[in-house]
């Protein structure tokens, strides 16, 4: 398989990474090389094999339903790009 320039544009959009027209061809070339490597795997017969998501087959723990996290809002907002009145600021999304 081979990714087209449109494929690369679409993936970049999904990944929310701006790729300029100048960068598109080089990105396509590199991604196609990577997928060339990945393709080797697709021909392997894996019928009947359980996918392994994790190294240790442990279930997720449940914890007691208690509030444990301390209030660190001021410390966390001190490193934010833009805040006002305790809220994170982003560009307007609803007109």
């Amino acid at each position, binding site marked *: 398989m081979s990714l087209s320039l449109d494929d690369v544009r679409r993936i970049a959009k999904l990944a929310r990474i701006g790729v300029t027209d100048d960068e598109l061809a080089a990105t396509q070339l590199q991604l196609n090389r990577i997928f060339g490597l990945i393709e080797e795997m697709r021909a392997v017969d894996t019928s009947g094999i*359980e996918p392994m998501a994790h190294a*240790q087959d442990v279930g997720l723990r449940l914890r007691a339903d208690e509030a444990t996290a301390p209030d660190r809002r001021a410390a966390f907002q001190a490193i934010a790009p833009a805040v006002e009145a305790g809220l994170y600021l982003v560009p307007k999304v609803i007109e």
Partner: protein
Amino acid sequence: MLNNTLKQLSARLAAKEVSAVELATEYLARIELLNPRLNAFITVDREKTLAEAQTADALRAAGNAGLLTGVPLAHKDIFCQQGWKTSCGSKMLDNFISPYDAHIIEQCRKAGLVTLGRANMDEFAMGSSNENSAYGPVRNPWDVNAIPGGSSGGSAAAVAARLAPAATATDTGGSIRQPAAFCGVTGIKPTYGVVSRFGMVAFASSLDQGGPIATTAEDCALLLNVMAGYDERDSTSLERTKEDYTRDLAQPLTGLKIGLPKEYFAEGLAADVAQAIEAAIAEYKKLGAEVVEVSLPNTKLAIPSYYVIAPAEASSNLSRFDGVRYGHRAAEYSGLADMYEKSRAEGFGWEVKRRILTGTYVLSHGYYDAYYLQAQKIRRIIADDFQKAFAQCDVIMGPVAPTTAWNLGEKSDDPVAMYLEDIYTLGVNLAGLPGMSVPVGFGKSVDGKAGRPVGLQIIGNYFSEAKMLNVAHQLQQVTDWHTRAPAL
């Protein structure tokens, strides 16, 4: 003093031959002298380091010192550390002063270890050469024209150059073992789940694992005692009884069964690396070990499987970097989507972008089964292969990498060539097994200069870290490769 192991430094501090402040001052002076050439540190902060050293000295004066109180070390810039810039090698986090400590950092603080600085690394731990750092490449102390390996290249180079007696590091596909091998130092990646990932910037969550790099296996054991342990804040942290990883160091190796996977010694392995590995195996035979041939028949499939799983998990993990709550935000944008796209385009380097794009594609609608699920099935096959091999042996040995360190720039334009170098390390992460690298000699001369270090990989079954450290320690009792330091 700068050639002392942690164990020796601990004894000297206990005997009051030296104070933590004096020790930190001496290392800081060496960092100041050599870091401009090696670029092993992203951040050095003398005041913070000396304040930590003073605290350690006060603890000792009050009679409250532990074994490692006052011993200095470097932290890979991936571990969040309160008050320190935690850049993860990325422009994205260049302005990120961490508001909290990673579990590993807390553990080190409790043990009284003193932070010498923050070690350079490949951006978001993605790379095998340390050329992907936004802060410039780290240089290999054995030859400044060579790469130090990656992604924990700063940690390994700092220890090799004696800018720090030890360092923390992380390993997702070989990032502790390969730089340790290329820099001639000792490092261990524990079993997945032994060290908490809380506060360790996430790359591929089902593979990431922290561990130590030091000059000796004994020092790695001492540090693993500090770093390992259950942490409820990491959902994959394992609830196990606390172990003493030094407990078996002195055990003799008589009757130890070493499995040599034939696929690790096949075509592609450089002759000089093979020679050093074989010499180490010969030493083990002298120590009473037996050697059996084993097979890991799907070794080659670890590369495509890993380069689907790791990017898929990375694309999900790195979606948090959106310029909203912390990290880089573009200066100008037309709306929310544009802010995301510009902030991420400016904040991430190209290797990180490529992996996010690869991961986004393999997880996108209609491709999940063909890529991600298939890769996870191959992951199972690879893990099963290791268990079949461990039915025949106690530990598996082989090279860490097919060659010694290559020259800076040699592979930086070809990500696939770089990925192929990870062939012997990736399977260990996919299976979640512990793996380590031990220095066992030097390769052939390069560009008319002395050869570069070779690392022996020791792979153990789950939770066999104490055994592996024993195996490495015994080799270090009869060889002196781990005591060699580059002339700088």
